[in-house]
């Protein structure tokens, strides 16, 4: 069996080159551009992992901040005693476990229960962590001292991005991916062709949550001092929803189209109009619903389709002058 066809090989080659070029950035700049690029790559991974689950199921997950925070805390707690790579694995397992519990409780019910449950999840985990810390340890925060610089975080995130894309691509080719496609079309039919829909959704949610947990772990050294409110920042959840939907969730690279412009825009707004960030988030949600229901991706595909039709029409006109 051939693994990749002609087109796929070309895409893989192109992607590898793109990754290679992007990875050179820290050699050119170590300041502002690197810092915003870390943000961009971080959101690319978060949004793509989010889309793995929410794209096909249409369930809006606001659990991102909870998974992220668990990843961060894993590192903060273990950095002095456990090797970093092992911490990444533990972060993935811990957030995957949380995803599993949440998924089992809510995913057999309708989407609204899921949204509500995830809406407060980060706050719940934050309260529990704070309570544990105040009762069983001396201080509220944890220091994370590592030798990692911004560029190491950047490279790790890039590597993770590659893994997420490959995972997404493998899932799409697998029976699980096909099952999700059927569920997205018609859940009743999915059940009647033998798909255990609840199980499929939970598995995907676990995969998505585990990746998000790893992102939180990789970012922990950037915080240097980890406290519950900064680790479980609920805004991350909302920003991920916005960027992913803004880009478009029908294809695995769709969120990329939302992440890059929105991260840059939000960075500027935070710098120059710090009191207006809520407005920007609010307007972005409105724009998604009323102007870009399929995201930038949807608009692009419409354009491509229009152009094709236009070409066909002009070709016909050329034939009968």
């Amino acid at each position, binding site marked *: 069996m051939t693994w990749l066809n002609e087109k796929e090989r070309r895409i893989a080659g192109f992607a590898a080159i793109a990754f290679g070029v992007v990875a050179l950035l820290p050699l050119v700049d170590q300041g502002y551009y690197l810092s915003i690029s870390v943000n961009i790559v971080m959101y690319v991974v978060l949004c793509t992992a989010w889309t793995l689950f929410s794209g096909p199921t249409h369930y809006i997950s606001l659990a991102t901040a909870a998974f992220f925070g668990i990843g961060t805390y894993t590192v903060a707690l273990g950095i002095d005693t456990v090797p970093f790579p092992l911490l990444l694995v533990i972060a993935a397992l811990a957030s995957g476990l949380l995803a599993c519990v949440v998924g089992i409780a809510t995913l057999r019910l309708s989407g609204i229960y899921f949204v509500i449950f995830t809406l407060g999840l980060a706050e719940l985990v934050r309260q529990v962590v704070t309570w544990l810390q105040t009762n069983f340890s001396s201080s509220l925060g944890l220091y994370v001292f590592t030798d990692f610089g911004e560029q190491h975080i950047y490279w790790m995130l890039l590597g993770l991005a590659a893994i997420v894309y490959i995972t997404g691509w493998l899932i799409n080719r697998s029976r699980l991916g*096909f*099952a999700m496609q059927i569920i997205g079309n018609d859940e009743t039919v999915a059940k*009647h*062709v033998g798909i255990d*829909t609840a199980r499929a959704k939970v598995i995907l949610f676990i995969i998505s949550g585990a990746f998000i947990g790893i992102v939180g772990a990789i970012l922990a050294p950037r915080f240097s001092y980890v406290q519950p409110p900064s680790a479980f920042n609920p805004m991350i959840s909302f920003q991920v929803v916005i960027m992913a939907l803004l880009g478009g969730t029908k294809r695995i690279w769709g969120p990329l189209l939302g992440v890059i412009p929105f991260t840059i825009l939000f960075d500027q707004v935070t710098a120059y109009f710090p009191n207006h960030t809520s407005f920007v988030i609010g307007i972005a949600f409105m724009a998604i619903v009323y102007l870009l229901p399929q995201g930038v991706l949807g608009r692009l595909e419409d354009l491509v389709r229009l152009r094709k039709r236009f070409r066909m029409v002009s070709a016909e006109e050329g034939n009968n002058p």
Partner: protein
Amino acid sequence: MSAAILSLDHATKAFGGLIAVNDLSFSLQDGELLGLIGPNGSGKTTVLNLISGALKPTSGSISLGGTEIAGQPAHKIARLGIARTFQLVRILPSLTAEQNVVAGGVFGHVRSWGVEAHDRARLLLERVGLSGRGDSPTSSMTYIDQKRLELARALAANPKVLLLDEWLAGLNPSELKIGIDLIRELRNDGISIIMVEHVMDAIRSLCDRCVVMSSGLKIADGDVHGVLADPEVIRAYLGDDHA
């Protein structure tokens, strides 16, 4: 007499105060083609929903070849070998016709995946009269073709029992003839079939036996011609005056 492959025993389904299926018992023999008829709203679709696991019975038991399936989730029942079509046709709009059929076989009773599944899907498409249409988008298909596609999807898992909910409804006379021949062929292949149908000609020419429902109750069960001549059945369909 051959063994029962599927049997309902005092199956009941209530929606609040409305008892849509009331203490219903009947069985389907292996290889039999059973007609399930009755006036509108008599509970036929609900019976199929109970068998396929779309709904859980309020009480009673349903067994498939000796295995209790009442109340099991739909995906488990599908894997045990029951496939169905829907009264209001349900296709998967974002998939191609061929993928729609593949979908029926990937997770079901007898599974296939990859090249094998696609080969099988093409064969089934040909069988239901859609040969060469595998790549066409399903949204542009006519209603009849969508029904054919749904049947092909149901057959993809090689089911033991096939449930057809008014599959012949809405066909014109020539399509009806093709449809009837197709169902007969399936039955000759050894699939046990329950067909819910309002087209009496089809029931007469196809079924070995039929069960008649009215307001959730079974009012007749037996040989087709005998049942259709039963005064109670005529009354259920046409009202008291005609009995």
